[in-house]
């Protein structure tokens, strides 16, 4: 039954909803490429609070393997801020995947360069 429903959903089209924006700011903890990250979410310029957020990461080459185990983010100090600790295997470029559940359902992809001083957006 659920499968039939799914097929119906597949064949429909729908309009785009308003998108969530994300940015990331990580600090290197100094050991084994563990980073403490602050994630800021906003929608239409307004901070987005109360979302259930999990954070994962992939290397750009081989996105279906070598991914780190996603972690759940905690709510941060300010509205729209979330905190997560990422345990990366190596520094360098990572594709960070932010999966939102809760009030909004979304998947956001951002690119960052992880170095020993912190993160910088790619290019």
């Amino acid at each position, binding site marked *: 039954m*659920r*499968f039939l429903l*799914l097929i119906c*959903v*597949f*064949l*429909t*089209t*729908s309009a*785009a*909803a308003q*998108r969530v924006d994300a940015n990331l700011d990580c600090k290197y903890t100094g050991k084994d490429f563990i980073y403490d990250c602050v994630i800021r979410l906003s929608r239409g310029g307004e901070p987005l609070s109360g979302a259930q957020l*999990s954070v*994962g990461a992939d290397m*750009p*080459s*081989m*996105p*279906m*393997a*070598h*991914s780190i*185990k*996603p972690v759940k983010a905690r709510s941060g100090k300010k509205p729209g801020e979330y905190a997560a600790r990422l345990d990366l*295997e190596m520094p360098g470029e990572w*594709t960070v*995947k932010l*999966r939102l559940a809760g009030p909004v*359902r*979304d*998947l956001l*992809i951002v690119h960052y360069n992880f170095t020993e001083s912190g993160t910088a957006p790619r*290019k």
Partner: protein
Amino acid sequence: MDEYAIGVLTNIGLFSFVALSAWLLLVAGELSFGQQAFFGVGAYAAGIGTAMLGWPLPLAALAAMALGAAAAALVGLPTLRLRGLYFTMATLAAAEMLRILFELFHWQIALGDERIGPDGTQGFRGIRWMLERGIEPLDFLAMVWILLIGVMVIFLRVENSRLGATLRALGHDPELARSAGIDVDRLKLGVVAAGGALAALGGALFAHHNTYIEPRNFDIMLGVHSLAYGLIGGLGTAFGPLLGVVLDIGVLEATRSLQGYRMIVFGGLVAVLLVFRPRGLLDERVVHWIRSRA
């Protein structure tokens, strides 16, 4: 099931498509380093279909498969007579050309307040068909595996048919196959096109799973891994490449405690395994033995 387990199982399913397509050529006697490109063709085509043209996913996936088969046949035609390393290098060259074309591919349209479409090396984001329809990761997982099982059923049927025997004859000795009256060129072209379509289907699903693709997703690493899966799992049955993927991703996930040493352990294990089983775990002999028991 938690989100993480769903993710791992989905990845295994997605990888299996491109591994099966490399395996198909391996059974026909050729090493292809180029299946990742058709995976990429499928990903881009399906992404453009749903995100830019507003098609439903099934239609976009079918278009992706057609395009993947066409691209593979186009690469296959001039290389039909190449054997061994020559064929392998030709597929690699073609795949890298396609990847560079993805890097040069800019085509964006305005949708709402943002521009959507492939943007060269910056990639193609916003392939949000699943999210817009509220399809849950678990449903997506079910869809991937239903399609994969469908493909497997076809493979296993072909395996026991005359076509399967012909295919293995071709892989065993193309000259002998030719002299036995098999139209080797047509058969090989068919295999190449089928492999392209299969990889493209995987790519179409991958693009929608990830919502974002970029040219580097389709570099040679993916191609060589796909090839390795078929050979590790075994050339005797279509379950071979699946076993290879499960072993690789499964072992990688299970050995998180070995973080940093995983590839050292796994790489060594693969090399040693191939010493003892050069045609993989489920090679023709094992498959024959299992069949005779069943």
